[in-house]
């Protein structure tokens, strides 16, 4: 029995019709789940567009995180996993939303390019989930900044039309419309594919351990080095004998690594630190499956955790903060949280008045 279906004497429930049509159109790729919700796995962009149309036309709601009112239709884009074309001159690649970032990165290897450095958990995500989800599609770039991995996007808007943003490194053509999709949980548009900015694949890595008198000194040194242009792939930190031990992994060309090491080293020396020359006491754990939870944290939270004797592995470093594995307070990146500003809800309501894409969380 399809939820909401009626006998022949009453007008059929639109949601019941939606479910019937979804089942008819997708066959085994449609599955009814508990609470009247449904899960769809369209195998092509065309099927995905059909799902969105049926949901919209019948007053349904797309969703990910359980019903509020109308039971949601949860859509998997995993079958949309085409990667390419590669554009080696611009160091970009176009990939569909269901492609795993780890798969894209493997493909980039042949071009001597990389999507990284990304956090361990991010690397396991589908592209669409990385861009739309709590990571917001962000990665760190030289200068201590964060920047979207995508340089151009194609998405389906709530009205079913396509939004295609022109690939350009920057623009001055009004508000950044990609922001309707990045970090928005698919609630103002559903991503189909993106053109990604890649970087030169590191040809070497180096890990150096520093000892610094205080957490505040570490944070000050790292911030200064990032502003100067140093790139850090990963920073593992812990307290030992009253000092902070910081194991830094650099990647790039040999000259790049030398420059970054010298820059960070100078600032760590300036904070009374020194090269410790040995690894952290805790051996590097084997890669976990799945990787441990990650949180987006400010540097103040990192310093506080270290003051309390905590330890952490830090990725996606910027002047404002980092993504942390370990005992650091911050925003949980495994779940979509309520949006940080009420104006965003008003914007979502204006863009998708019927909330067919789920409405704000």
């Amino acid at each position: 029995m399809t939820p909401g279906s009626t006998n022949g004497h009453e007008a059929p429930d639109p949601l019941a019709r939606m479910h019937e049509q979804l089942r008819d159109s997708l066959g085994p790729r449609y599955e009814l789940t508990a609470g009247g919700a449904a899960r769809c796995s369209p195998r092509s962009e065309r099927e995905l567009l059909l799902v969105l149309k049926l949901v919209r036309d019948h007053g349904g709601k797309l969703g990910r995180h359980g019903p509020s009112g109308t039971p949601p239709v949860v859509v998997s884009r995993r079958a949309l996993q085409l990667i390419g074309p590669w554009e080696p001159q611009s160091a970009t690649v176009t990939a569909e939303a269901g492609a795993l970032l780890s798969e894209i990165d493997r493909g980039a290897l042949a071009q001597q390019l990389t999507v990284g450095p990304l956090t361990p958990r991010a690397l396991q995500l589908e592209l669409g989930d990385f861009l739309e989800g709590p990571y917001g599609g962000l990665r760190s770039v030289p200068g201590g900044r964060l920047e979207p991995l995508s340089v151009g996007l194609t998405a389906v808007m709530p009205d079913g039309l396509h939004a295609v943003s022109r690939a350009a490194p920057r623009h001055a053509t009004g508000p950044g419309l990609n922001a309707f999709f990045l970090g928005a949980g698919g609630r103002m548009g559903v991503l189909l594919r993106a053109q990604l900015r890649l970087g030169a694949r590191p040809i070497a890595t180096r890990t150096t351990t520093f000892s610094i008198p205080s957490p505040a000194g570490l944070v000050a040194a790292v911030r200064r080095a990032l502003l100067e242009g140093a790139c850090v792939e990963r920073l593992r930190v812990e307290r030992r004998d009253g000092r902070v031990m910081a194991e830094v992994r650099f990647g790039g060309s040999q000259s790049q690594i030398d420059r970054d090491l010298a820059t960070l080293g100078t600032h760590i020396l300036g904070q009374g630190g020194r090269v410790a020359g040995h690894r952290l006491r805790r051996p590097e754990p084997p890669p976990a499956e799945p990787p441990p939870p990650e949180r987006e944290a400010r540097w103040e939270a990192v310093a506080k955790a270290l003051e309390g004797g905590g330890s952490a592995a830090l990725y996606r470093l910027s002047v404002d903060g980092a993504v942390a594995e370990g005992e650091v307070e911050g925003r949980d990146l495994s779940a979509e949280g309520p949006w940080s500003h009420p104006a965003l809800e008003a914007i979502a309501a204006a863009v998708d008045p019927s909330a067919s894409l789920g409405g704000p969380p």
Partner: protein
Amino acid sequence: MTAPAPLSASSLPPLSALAQAAAAELSELLPGRVSTADEDRISYARDMWPKAILWIRQGRIPPPPDLVVWPGSEEEVQKVIQLARAHKLPVIPFGAGSGVCGGVCAVRGGISLDLKRLERVEAVDGERFTVDAGAGVVGEPLERRLNAQGYTLGHFPSSIYMSTLGGWLAARSAGQLSTRYGKIEDMVVSLRAVTGRGEIVQTPERPCSGPDLAELLLGSEGTLCTFTRARLRVHPRPQHQAFRAFRFRSVEAGVEAIRRVLRDGLRPAAVRLYDPFDTALVARKKPHAPEDVVPPSERGILRGDLLPLLTRAVASRALGNARLFNRAADLFRRCLLVLMFEGEARRSLQEEGFARELCAAAGGADLGEEPARRWYATRYDVSYRMSPVVDGGMVADTFEVAATWDRVMEVYERVRAATAPLAFVMCHFSHAYVEGCSLYFSFAVASQGGDRALETRYDDLWKAALAAALAAGATISHHHGVGLLKSRALAEQLGDARRMLQGLKRALDPDGIMNPGKLLP
């Protein structure tokens, strides 16, 4: 060329009853800071859009506001917008008027909201490397105040003496050292603004959830909100600067050198490649030492060197045959590349050294430091006095686009080809990124048929330039914005995605009072 026609206040549209009522109410709210005087309405009717300057020469006043107000606080800005909303009267935020796309023309009258009184700059937070500054602060005093504390914003648009922070945010401004420090949107930590609903909005700092609200406000050119304040990233003042210039045999070779420098992880502060005629023109100052060129700032070329030369020697009659002129320019081949690195001494010297190797490998001839130092010394060599140019029967304008590297040469060729019959055109490449760069075209337009014919030709030029850029896959602006000038082209660039922009407008400015007619037609 006819003499400039006098401006007559009698040609100003009279104040509507609605505007008069609003002026009376605002005068109570902001005593002494509301004006309906003719000279103020005329002054605030335009920015530095060349077409508006042409109109002025013709004695035509660009669409003026009904009144001008000077609020002194965010609360006063909010009250003005709330009052405007109650009266359904347009509000046109106004910084320092340096825009070049007609973004402040009051196409439906209304209130010109001058924000220069919001100029307070707080002390730098030296731990987080941020500064809080009011939207009305002019660029150069802001930088000077930061320098006094040992910091820099790193934002150096050529308009730095006559543009405000709010204007930078509204139009997604870029400075000459953007390759290192980023564009203004890269420097924003958080923003404060008053929306068309009359509500104060503060964008959240990271970590935060949901879409990036700041990204949805930046570049809105006053059509959604007016910025009142921003928290910006600052950097320690650089210890050292390293300069280098190179000569390349072709544009392609120079572009490839820039691409390799960026791909290799180097981060010059300034990158500027001048196309052949641009290079040759500025080299004329030293005819006996062709390597010793003087690279100008972008407008310095046009208004400082090119236009006086052309005005005297060639005159608008000859420039009327732009195609011929552009063919002559094709005789030149060599291109000048200017690089500047800054920051910590050891790092900037190392990076400059690696860049030298990469440029040599790409076929660049090392010209030493001097051409780059000269560019730096004259980087604000900008004259805003367009009137003498227009008096000479010409209009000069600039068009800055951006594209990924695989499209850069096509954009260059197609825009040149499309505009060559209509204007003298040259270009430089700057604001480089790993995946692409900005192309900055400079045009000189002339016509033998008088002011109206010149205006027609100017319009034709822009239609051709925008169509060519769009066809080649570029975005139609990298840092000047859209305004009135490019609004139709923006609709074309966005396609169906303009519905998202319209949704944003409905959400933040439901009555459509904020700077009507801009961004989207």
